[in-house]
């Protein structure tokens, strides 16, 4: 499933500026690997974007 999201805040690694758009894909058959960038819901901080 493809999902469009917008970046809130700043990040150097991966490098994003506030207002950047990202398209994320929900991988059902692909295993995540180190260095992949993911978005996920954190219990306290809401939706985050992180590099594994």
């Amino acid at each position, binding site marked *: 499933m493809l999902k469009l999201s917008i970046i809130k805040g700043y990040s150097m690694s991966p490098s994003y500026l506030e207002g950047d*758009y990202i398209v994320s894909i929900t991988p059902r058959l692909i295993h995540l690997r180190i260095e992949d960038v993911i978005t996920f819901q954190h219990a306290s901080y809401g939706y985050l974007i992180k590099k594994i």
Partner: protein
Amino acid sequence: MLSNILNLVKKITPVQEVHAHCDIPCGIYDPGHAIIGCLTIIRMTDLMNDHSTVKHSVDCQNEVSRYIAEKERHAAIVKHEIRIIWGDFFKPPQFEKYPELHDLTHRIMLLGSKARQEVNTDAALELLEKVNRFAELFWEIKGITTKKSVYPYPPALAVIYPEL
């Protein structure tokens, strides 16, 4: 054009906001690693210069190779730590209040590369001077006063400490 299309999509359908951060938002920033990195670069440069008149031997090559490896590693640490504070901690109002921050950070990046590529004491000392200034501004923004003291071991140079 792509941006316009995405802005239009955003108006039609809600777009999820995702929060970007270098790490899980921990709020822990400190230029201390960068300062220690600078001191290490200077120390390794000094040790390499001490070997400039030594007769070449396998032992000497081994020692110098180890100094080079540490200098490389610490120059990378300095650049990484400064980039993180510049990119994640400082925000637009602080850049407005301290306009030297961008140039200072860029200068540190260039000096970090120079100190890494060369056996250059002047570049390493200038790198420490710039990182000290960066640390001074960082603590000032945090509302914490600083003092300059000489580090108690070689290369025994003055660095910025927060008065906590």
